[in-house]
């Protein structure tokens, strides 16, 4: 999950900006730290060689320089931020080979549902994507906020109930990656890690066909069962009954997921997350 080992163009660009920014800043930070330590050491009271200049309390030139150094750095970095924000806007498509894959991700308490509306399948806690293809994500949440994040593919984005956020990514190399939720969402939050399988574009249709053979069907009823609070250790897959399911969730036609069952009326509710332990 190393951010400096990107597996797609977005992550690569993000981490390049990250490293460039650090080096731009180090260029002034290191000399400043050295100067602090050097001045502090040289002007120590016990050093008789250091000249005591109690009246050196203002210098227009020094002021000019000390306002300019951080200002120039910020102008440079501000340019990086402006260009980077526009080039790496999560909503902007990331061109790839082959036809784009649409994925609708829903954060549930406490698992991830990935709906492939065009392929009419859905998976839980496993995201399978073809290498090199443009990936268009639409994201929402069944209940509380979460953040969808695959560190080695780049940019994260919030998921919120009743709203749809957009994210575009591309995975360049086949392999297994990990994704997670980066926004605390309750007791089962740490178990919201999911697998990302990047497979060859040729194998992707086969995987879709194999997945579509499953008996499990995702419709409103099974979705409502899935959105109950709890942790999913397995990796279930579904045939998608209604390709508009995501819209029903995002438009709140399906009401938000329930919270914990309140067993005790007093201060400490027993959460639905008993299987978390």
């Amino acid at each position, binding site marked *: 999950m190393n951010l400096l080992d990107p597996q797609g163009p977005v992550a690569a660009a993000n981490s390049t900006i990250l490293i460039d*920014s650090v080096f731009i800043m180090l260029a002034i930070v290191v000399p400043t730290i050295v100067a602090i330590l050097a001045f502090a050491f040289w002007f120590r009271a016990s050093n008789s060689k250091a000249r005591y200049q109690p009246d050196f309390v203002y210098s227009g030139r020094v002021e000019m320089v000390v306002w300019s150094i951080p200002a120039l750095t*910020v102008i440079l970095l501000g340019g990086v*931020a402006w260009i980077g924000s526009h080039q790496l806007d999560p909503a902007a498509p990331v061109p790839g080979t082959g036809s784009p894959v649409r994925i609708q991700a829903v954060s549930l308490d406490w698992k991830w549902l990935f709906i492939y509306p065009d392929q009419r399948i859905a998976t839980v806690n496993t995201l399978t994507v073809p290498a090199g293809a443009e990936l268009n994500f639409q994201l929402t949440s069944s209940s509380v906020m979460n953040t969808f994040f695959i560190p080695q593919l780049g940019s994260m984005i919030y998921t919120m109930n009743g709203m749809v956020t957009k994210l575009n990514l591309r995975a360049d190399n086949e392999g297994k990656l990990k994704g997670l939720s980066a926004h*605390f969402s309750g007791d089962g939050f740490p178990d919201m890690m999911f697998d990302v399988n990047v497979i060859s574009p040729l194998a992707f249709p086969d995987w879709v066909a194999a997945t579509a053979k499953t008996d499990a069907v995702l419709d409103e009823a099974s979705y409502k069962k899935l959105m109950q609070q709890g942790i999913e250790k397995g990796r279930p897959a579904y045939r998608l009954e209604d390709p508009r399911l995501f819209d029903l969730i995002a438009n709140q036609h399906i009401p938000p997921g329930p919270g914990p069952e309140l067993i005790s009326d007093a201060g400490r509710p027993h959460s639905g997350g008993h299987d978390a332990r």
Partner: protein
Amino acid sequence: MPAVPTVEATMLGKLDWSAIPFDQPIPLVAGAVVLVAILGVLIWVVVKGHLPYLWHEWITSVDHKRIGVMYILLASVMLLRGGSDAIMMRIQQAVAYQSQGYLPPEHYNQIFSAHGTIMIFFVAMPFVIGLMNLVVPLQLGVRDVAFPTLNSVGFWLTATGALLVNLSLVIGEFARTGWLAFPPLSELSYSPGVGVDYYAWSLQISGVGTLVAGINLVTTVLKLRTKGMNYLRMPMFCWTTLASNLLIVAAFPILTATLAMLLLDRYLGFHFFTNEAGGNVMMFMNLIWAWGHPEVYILVLPAFGIFSEVVSTFSGKALFGYRSMVLATMAICVISFMVWLHHFFTMGAGPDVNAIFGIASMIIAIPTGVKIYNWLFTMYGGRIRFATPMLWSVGFMVTFIIGGLTGVLLAVPPADFMLHNSMFLVAHFHNVIIGGVLFGAFAGFEYWFPKAFGFRLDERWGKAAFWFTFLGFFVTFIPLYVAGMLGMTRRMQHYDVAAWRPWMIVAAFGMAVLTIGVICQILQLVVSIRNREALRDRTGDPWDGRSLEWATSSPPPVFNFAFNPDVRGEDAYWDMKARARQQSLEHDAPEYRDIEMPRNSPTGFVCAFFATIMGFALIWHIWWMVILGGLGAFATFVVFAWRDHDEYVIPAEEVARIDRVNLEERRSLVSMAGAI
């Protein structure tokens, strides 16, 4: 829900025996230990007959110095509580690799929420407000703050908030939502327990206290300066106090309003931030950070002021580029209100919005950088004495620059897309809050302790505390930076990624080093109290200070100054000393006058007592008690408003007697210094 409320439900609301966590040993034992300690102290106080002393001299005191000391005491106690939470979290993350560790999620989640809440609201805030209270009137050369009784109310309401947070340890639970309680997780549907209510009510009550303190200190700086103390002659700490408290006055009402909306959602079925009925989570994010970002500067600006005083004093020079520093302070004060969106670049705002807020955030780095360079040039050509406060200051400069670097990095939206909410972020804000605010608080503590208590702190233990804290900080938080770069997000109760584990273990080790630092700090206090005669500060000016607080005795008399000093330039006291040496100081015996001082008042304590009752009752839905508490607090104010005597007179002979002692000591000091 029973259709007809039972007697118990009417009398006790939601409260019953299941609120006591008999099944959870850690909070129960911790709570029991605290309870026994409090009872022990109370019994000792009563048996030894200290109660009248405490009541008259401290609890009802409206003396800004006493209130300042009580704020700092509160902050120190809560630092231990918040620090214990930190230790538990670091141990949990060190052991919870492919296992559940020793803390179940519902407990771990309370701990990190409490840690954040406590450290910001009940450690950092009271510590800096305490130092401002203690020092600012002295630096301005005046006898008290603008509203002495209100000051006491502010303190006691803050203490109420702290008390409620600690009460949640044994009765009920604390929030499990993180320290900002984002909805919809914090809404009733997803957090049905009392945790969020504890959180919200303790912040509402202490928030009133903070606002009152802010109004008080702004008024003090704007209206109560001694003769000749122009704005551009004020010590830097007064400037940063002004900036910080202006921010309090402007920002805290936003917090109060936001939490009020959340509470309306929870108590009366409103829909400000719920999923249903048009509630909007993004609104909460914007509002809470519109308070939350200025809050960062509320904390760090006073710390900047402390470093300015310390670096200048211990370098034996006036602050370099004073006007530049004033400009930088006020620039930070204004810009800090325009950057809140950088806390959620990943919410899906467009690139223009993200870029503009990113650049605005970077712009704050300019005045901050200027401050660093001005401290640097204050040291240049100085004669630097490395007493403990100066060590904290130099340690701060080095640490804070690194925190600034990572902060500016997080302001670059594409970088934030990878690092948002990660352990890198956790490392960053600890880098600036420990390296900035806490180091500043410790520097101020060491620096002004002799002023408050009349004896210096032991240097050897102080230096040991510094080095352990300084090194411990890096050993704890550099690994968290690395873990963030390895994709680790914050608030993980357990994890399965092998690469994170070694860093969590190193961080736990660093936490141990930090703990040694805290122990050294405590030992320093104990050793210094024991050796107080040897460490006695007879001159009132132990550090060869430059500003007016050093012009009076240590500890200062209740009226601070027998005569309001006449200020003729920056570094007022330094000038006075210089002039005194030239003129060999022997002027005529001054003509003393009666001094009127505000009377002590139990208003603050009584009001907070009722506020505690009301807060507790609100949390547990005990409505009759809410009414009782509310009426009681209101009645307290009515009684106070109808008071007959609000001042008492210290006769001129008494003033003269106190001041002559001080002058004698000071003359001998100045003549000695003159001889050298």
